[in-house]
């Protein structure tokens, strides 16, 4: 099940790559899902680390701007899906984000939602035949 969802998510990243002409509006709707999934995989991350991870996973094709990332992180934190803790690194405070129990449950539901959306998008736009 999770494998299928991951496959769909990778496929969605591919779709985003194909639709590179307007990456940001497409990305915006799934930003929370991407953040939740990254935190699910990496346990805890800080803002800069998330931007770099997205860059690394998409081989530099998707660049998450800080102006979009932080509001999404703050929203997820306010909604109780993420919690934060501070660590002092090189004499400065580093804020780490991690999933709460509620956030852990939300990952599965968001991934399922994303998978369903991708499948519908593929059907609607007939992308399977076009991308072959």
């Amino acid at each position: 099940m999770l494998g299928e969802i991951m496959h769909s998510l990778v496929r969605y990243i591919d779709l985003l790559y194909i639709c590179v002409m307007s990456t940001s509006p497409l990305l915006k709707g799934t930003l929370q899902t991407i953040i939740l999934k990254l935190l699910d995989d990496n346990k805890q991350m800080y803002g800069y680390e998330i931007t770099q991870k997205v860059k690394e996973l998409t081989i530099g094709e998707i660049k998450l701007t800080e102006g979009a990332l932080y509001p999404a992180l703050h929203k997820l934190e306010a909604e109780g899906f993420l919690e934060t803790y501070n660590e002092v690194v090189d004499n400065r405070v580093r804020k780490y984000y991690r999933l709460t129990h509620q956030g852990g449950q939300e990952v599965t539901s968001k991934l399922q939602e994303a998978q369903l959306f991708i499948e519908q998008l593929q059907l609607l736009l007939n992308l399977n035949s076009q991308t072959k």
Partner: protein
Amino acid sequence: MMITQAQQENIKEILWHNLKFRETFDELYDHILTSIERTETDEKLPYEIATDIIKNEFGGWEKLKELETSRQKEIQKHLRKKLWELMKGYFRFPLIMFTLLASGSFYYAADHLPRKVIMLVLFCTVMSPFIMWCRIAPINRWSKKYKASIKENIGERIGTLGFSFFNCFMFIPQLFTDQDSFSVINHLHASVLALVAVIYITHSLSAIRIFQEDLKVSLVS
């Protein structure tokens, strides 16, 4: 790129003067310094890179102000909603059993015990969230090194709400006059007092839960 202490202080000062809340300041300062440290070229000065990040990645100072405002609103909205939901929970099964028991006991106590005792109980009830706020309350608020925190501000509002009402309607009127007619607590009917107590108790218990779960503050160390 290597960044000197003086360059770090320079960036820190700019951010300190332009950002309102500690949470945003800490996060941004670390983000910018990490970005600069991982920059491989030395073409630009750290200050210039920091300005570029603020302008290009965050959308400028105005966008940062918007980010702070929206963050404050998001947290406020969530905590107010949660407080309200928790309070409503005390009027639904199974917690309504506790509420009914508390209101019945308070009605009986208000009818049989001296009102000074009732006042003391009410005072202790409103003091519990206030004490929790005191644990995170800034003592250096007027210092130049102090930066307001969103969570502290919200904690202050939640922690002092019951206390303020108690002061305004029950405690302060008695301070300024000896006339018994100004002593609200002595004239309230036991049923009204039981209602007031139930509101205070449910609010205080809900506020304590918010302090523990969301603001990570406990009543005892």
